[in-house]
């Protein structure tokens, strides 16, 4: 049994290596750095509101609509960051519109939307959305990474 267990561990390491190389290949092939844009979502520290869904539009086009499971929400509340979208845009100025649906601790449902401008250069563009529910209102902040 022990020897078999060791073999299982070895194949796990091999497959992890394949996964890593495949991810890099995929990124190179599908999202070259000069056009790559990735959007991440996290919750502000200590937030406990229920996040139901996040919707993203880039330059008016819907690119992501994500509905959260309980497990995913817990992972965000514990400090995890979710990559909600990876795609391609041309270099230059763009606009991202973020819509958030959820429920506040008071039990009130909310829906909030904000737009931000961002500039895409030749390097990959990483955008971090931090969601909060300060003073009973949902807040969306965009960080440039």
């Amino acid at each position, binding site marked *: *049994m022990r020897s*078999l*267990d*060791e*073999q*299982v*561990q*070895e*194949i*796990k*390491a*091999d*497959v*992890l*290596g*394949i*996964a*890593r*190389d*495949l*991810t*890099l*290949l995929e990124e*190179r*092939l599908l999202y*070259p750095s*000069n*056009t790559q844009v*990735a959007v*991440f979502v*996290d919750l502000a*520290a200590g937030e406990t509101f229920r996040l139901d869904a996040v919707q993203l539009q880039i330059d008016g086009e819907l690119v992501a609509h994500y509905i959260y499971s309980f*497990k*995913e929400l*817990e*992972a*965000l509340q*514990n*400090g*995890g*960051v*979710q*990559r909600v979208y990876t795609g391609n845009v041309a*270099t230059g100025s763009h606009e991202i519109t973020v819509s958030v649906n959820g429920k506040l601790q008071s039990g009130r449902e909310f829906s909030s939307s904000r737009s931000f401008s961002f500039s895409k250069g*030749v390097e990959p563009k*990483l955008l*971090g959305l931090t969601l909060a529910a300060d003073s009973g209102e949902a807040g969306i902040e965009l960080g440039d*990474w």
Partner: protein
Amino acid sequence: MSRLPTLLAGLQLAAVSAAGGAEDGLKDLYFGEALYYAHQGEYFAALERLDTELAQHYGLDEPALDALHYHIGDAEFSVGDFELSYRMHHRAGRAIRAVLEGDVEESVRNEAAYRLARIHFQKGQLADALHALERIDGRLPDGIESDVEFLRANIYMATERSPDAVEVLRRLQGAEGLAGFADYNLGIALLQSDRQGEALQQLDRAGGIRAADEAALSIRDKSNLVLGTLLMESEEFDEARQALDRVRLEGPLSNRALLSSGWAAASAQDYDRAIVPWSILAERASTDAAVQEARLALPFAYSQLNVHGRAALLYGEALQSFDEEVERLAASIDSIRKGRFLEALIREEIRQDKDWVIRLRTLPETPETYYLMELLASHDFQTALQNYLDLEDLRVKLESWQSSFDAFEDMIGLRRAYYEPLLPDIDGQFRELDSRIRLRRQQHELLDDRLQDLLVAPRPEFLATTEERMLSEQIARIEGALRGAEGARAAELRERARRLRGVLTFTLRTEYHERLTVFDEHLRSLQQAIDLMTERYESFVRVRQAAVHSFEGYEVPIRRLRTRVRDSLATVGLLMARQGHALEVVAINELNARRERLDNYRDQARYALADSYDRATKARAEAERAAADAPEGAPGPQASAVDPQGERP
């Protein structure tokens, strides 16, 4: 009693604790992404993300400028945690060892030593674990001092240094986050040190702690169960029953506690009291070994109370439930032999549910999974099952990747078909443009040099307009024609030419600074145009490169990856077959052992049933005879008692 696995369970308290990030918040989104997966228990994805991020980080010329630099300690620690959680014990610890050997702060090095010790401990490498702890020197990060000492105590206990463990655990009494665990382990350490009296007192304390969370409640139950068992062994039955009655009725240890509580009462000849816990237990799920024993013990208690009719009835019910159970076991074993067990385990729709083990056993069409909960109690089975499920996940991933290679190749083929015919013409146009651009750049550089020269040594004629230059050349020609001519007319013309030259020189000199300013302004605006042109030029070069990179250079990596995926898939298939077989063997052996025990119970029940009927019949006959013989109003005779140990299952 094998205590090691029991007492080491407390270490799970310090399980994966992927740190949040740098002191002033998360700096690296990809590290946060790895944590996101880890918090959901998806350790493969977490490891893949973090491995990639770490490899890229160390591949940089200046890693200190990378966002992961702020989290590098946490990231290395997390890799170890994730590897342990993903049951890759062999690899776990490599990254942490690298931190330990690196040039890091004292507190970081000490935390690395602690984490490495924890990994060694979980891998069963106790000497290495202790050695890692001995490397801790100086300041520890806040909040892990107690964890370090708790680990040290656990290592001492596992290496038969219980007196040392006692000393450490005494200092940890009341430590935050260890409530119940330090108390319970101290009791066990005292027991291992042959200090029975102190051990019982300590376990009594651990069994009475106030607790709110499930982990502390469970360890409190465990303390009471162990205490009750020890007191029973010492024939202190009343005290044993009191300890056992403190175990929660709905907790995971309640069945064993109820059974033992009944035996504690029965051992004290207090059968009335024994009936209470056994009656509760006998109504529970029939797959549990304690429940099965209770179904035999309950009628035994009634028979000791001379309630033979009730005893016979309950023996009959027990016999029926054992028959059904044996039948179900036989069906399960048969189903496992036909391979259905493994098929059921990997049913995707079931595993989506977090309570999949419970759901699986309730499916009516899968007798093979009915005993899954009970089988999971065996360590060998758990390891084999986890490995099998991990292999199945790998198989699904590899198969999905295998099919994605075709899509990649299609995509690359389409890009090649689009770009290749276009590129020669584009390259031709670009070469022409490139030569013009080079020329313009040279001209710009020449003018810039001239401006620099003029700033050092003024040369007004360099700033003459075209008309002025033509005029100057014309005057020079006139001057040349008049050279050598004589006479008044020639002298007059020479004077006029000189005046004209004078006017021109005057204009050039007086307007020199103004013209230099204009020249400078024009050169600056030309610089802007040149910058824009350079930007466009570079952008074109990048786009041109990207176009080529979109279809060139993938053939070899894809071919290699395809081969690796194919080979891994074959290995996974082989290992799944072996692991599956091992799983089936463990399951069948376990179920066979259960069947043998039930067969034994059935024999006992059959004998006891017949005996109870005999006694009940005899008692009734005696009662009827006595009623007929005795004068009206006299009490009936008592049935005879039997030896409890003789009938104990």
